[in-house]
């Protein structure tokens, strides 16, 4: 990350939903920033809070009775406290979003063109004819063949990949500065996924917008993102450049994710190393470090102390929330990446950094 002024800055954001069973701490104090023209990948499993945090950026959790605190700074304004009518001027205009499921995000009874025209006219005072011309232009931009005719078709006449292109066209209608893409390719086949990712990369180059891509797929972030934030149980546990996250990860959860995915070029005979246990309840998250019940390296006091997201010793852009000694972390990852199991690594290194 450079010294550029961040486009979006999220500070100590908390989002909580009151439910019958208790208060769900969906987002539990996260801080991150997005720089202009860059791509941030937010990675995490279901229930880690990655979607809720971005919906909150657009004010889309307000109506669900969420309790929101913290700040979301965009263009000098705090989106958490911004009145709804002013937020509406930003949503779909300066910040746009693409959702996971293109079929349920498009209205089945309206022609694609009408839905695009609506998106344009929501923020621009232009005639229908101008908006329609813009709709055709947008469909062409996202690579839909014969846009002048396709604009009069219904969503069901488009394939899954084409629908996602339409969603992207709609998001781009007003040339946003920031595009939030929530699992944009999860519902798509692998060759179509490659088309959509390539499209997003091309549009980013041409339009210079920043992208936040939310996904559980480490392959997608590795290819798309400049920087990565890893989320677990409502918190960011590690954030760094993509190269650092894959090359020198510092958090045991990140290690767990990296060791548990099969690789295309890996050997068949390597066993995967799963993360033991299951993701915790967000109503009663574990005390101290949220990851400690599943962490093979956890010490007794990790259940008491809450780790803060702190810069790594020699890299001010690499932050990690872990109570382990930084020297021990480096040695542990060294062992793990050369094929040790967590138990072997722990036996060899210990948790203090001193040889055991």
């Amino acid at each position, binding site marked *: 990350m450079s010294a550029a002024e961040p486009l979006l800055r999220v500070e100590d954001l908390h989002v909580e939903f009151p439910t019958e069973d208790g208060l769900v701490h969906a987002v539990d104090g996260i801080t991150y920033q997005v720089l202009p023209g860059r791509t941030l990948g937010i990675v995490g*499993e*279901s229930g880690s809070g990655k979607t809720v945090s971005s919906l909150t950026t657009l004010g889309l959790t307000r109506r669900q009775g969420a309790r929101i605190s913290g700040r979301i700074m965009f263009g000098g304004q705090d989106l958490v406290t911004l009145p709804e009518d002013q937020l509406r001027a930003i949503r779909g205009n300066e910040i746009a979003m693409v959702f996971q499921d293109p079929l349920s995000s498009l209205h089945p009874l309206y022609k694609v063109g009408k839905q695009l025209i609506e998106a344009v006219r929501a923020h621009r005072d232009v005639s229908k004819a101008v908006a329609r011309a813009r709709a055709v232009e947008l469909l062409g931009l996202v690579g839909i063949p014969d846009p002048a005719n396709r604009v009069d078709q219904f969503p069901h006449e488009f*394939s*899954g*990949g*084409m629908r996602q292109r339409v969603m992207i066209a709609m998001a781009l209608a007003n040339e946003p500065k920031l595009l939030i893409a929530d699992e944009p390719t999860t519902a798509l*086949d*692998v*060759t*179509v*996924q*490659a*088309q959509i*990712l*390539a499209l997003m990369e091309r549009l980013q180059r041409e339009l210079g917008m920043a992208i936040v891509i939310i996904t*559980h*797929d*480490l*392959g*997608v972030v*590795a*290819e*798309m993102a400049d920087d990565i934030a890893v989320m677990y149980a409502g918190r960011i546990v590690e954030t760094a450049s*993509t*190269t650092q*996250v*894959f*090359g020198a990860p510092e958090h045991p959860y990140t290690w*767990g*994710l*990296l060791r*548990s*995915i*099969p*690789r*295309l*070029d*890996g050997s*068949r*005979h390597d*066993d*995967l*190393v*799963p*993360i033991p246990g*299951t*993701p915790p309840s967000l109503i009663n998250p574990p005390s101290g470090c949220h990851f400690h019940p599943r962490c093979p390296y956890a010490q007794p006091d990790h259940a008491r102390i809450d780790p803060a997201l702190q810069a790594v010793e020699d890299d001010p852009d690499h932050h990690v929330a872990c109570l382990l000694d930084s020297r021990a972390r480096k040695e542990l990852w060294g062992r793990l990446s050369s094929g040790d199991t967590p138990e072997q690594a722990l036996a060899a290194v210990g948790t203090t950094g001193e040889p055991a």
Partner: protein
Amino acid sequence: MSEQGATGAASAFGEGAGAAAPAGQAPQQGEAPAGPLVRVVGLVKHFPITRGIIFQKKVGAVRAVDGVSFEIRRGETLGLVGETGCGKSTTARMLTRLLDATAGEIDFDGSDITRLKGAALKAVRREVQMIFQDPYSSLNPRKTIGSIIGEPFAIHGMLKEKGDRKREVQRLMETVGLNPEHYNRYPHEFSGGQRQRIGVARALALSPKLLIADEPVSALDVSIQAQVLNLLRDLQRRLGLTVVFIAHDLSVVRHMCDRVAVMYLGKVVEIGSGDDLYGFPRHPYTAALLAAVPQADPTRHGEARRVLGGDVPSPANPPSACRFHTRCPKAQEICSQQEPMLEDKGSGTLAACHFPMSREELAAMGVRSGA
């Protein structure tokens, strides 16, 4: 905890559950008879498209599976990969006889099961079991997991003594890494990964010869996926199971399978051992699939991916001859006129292509071949 080895056939899976077995050794159970377990010849499934409400008239057919032949060897894991609508699940459903084939033949353990009925079909169904994709909708929410896992015994009139059945179910639970004390709990009390373990235990109950896993991990989170994949691999080795593993994730298939068949629009376009197929894919579609997989390797960041254009054509009206020719970067005139046969291209796999890929072309696409 339950006693080990309750019944004869089951005694092979004993010891503790969940732990990973040492790699590289596949225990053989007894004397394996020669020949493949399953031989599929020219298998076809067409679903009719009809018009009219009362007088239905057939106006066409979705050619979901259109002439597929392959073998499943004893004790191996065969992967079926391909995109939505390529016919991989339909093929699997015909193997279990959940769907009847339109044409073709399925030989299971030396006998033709394609058109079996009644008691003979029921006997075959004991031998072929299935694990489903969605662990939420494939378990009855009103039944305890004890009765879900024990249901195959009820259906087939086995272990009628209640105590016997409970003991056997608890042993199965332990085999798949569930706590046997949770016998009386309901599915909603379990997480996604644990539910998939329940599905695995149910599929193993009758000690089947063939296990079909249709996208068994695609509904699970990454960290849980690895737990279930390790369990399946461990069980396959310990029990010497023959497995058909269906998935769209090529990395998962690479990890799990001895041999892999790639399907496109109802046809097998390439089949071979995992090492050969991933090391030197010959069919342009296999190459395109491999090139498209996003890899957890940031050195590929920004590398120009060769993206396959277009969408999969409709299986109701597939392209002539080679079905891939409409999207294939190497297609020539002959590809739309003469259907290529599945044949040895000299590098291990069988590929159905007139112009198989060379190593140079693969490298240009960003496929790392020749490992």
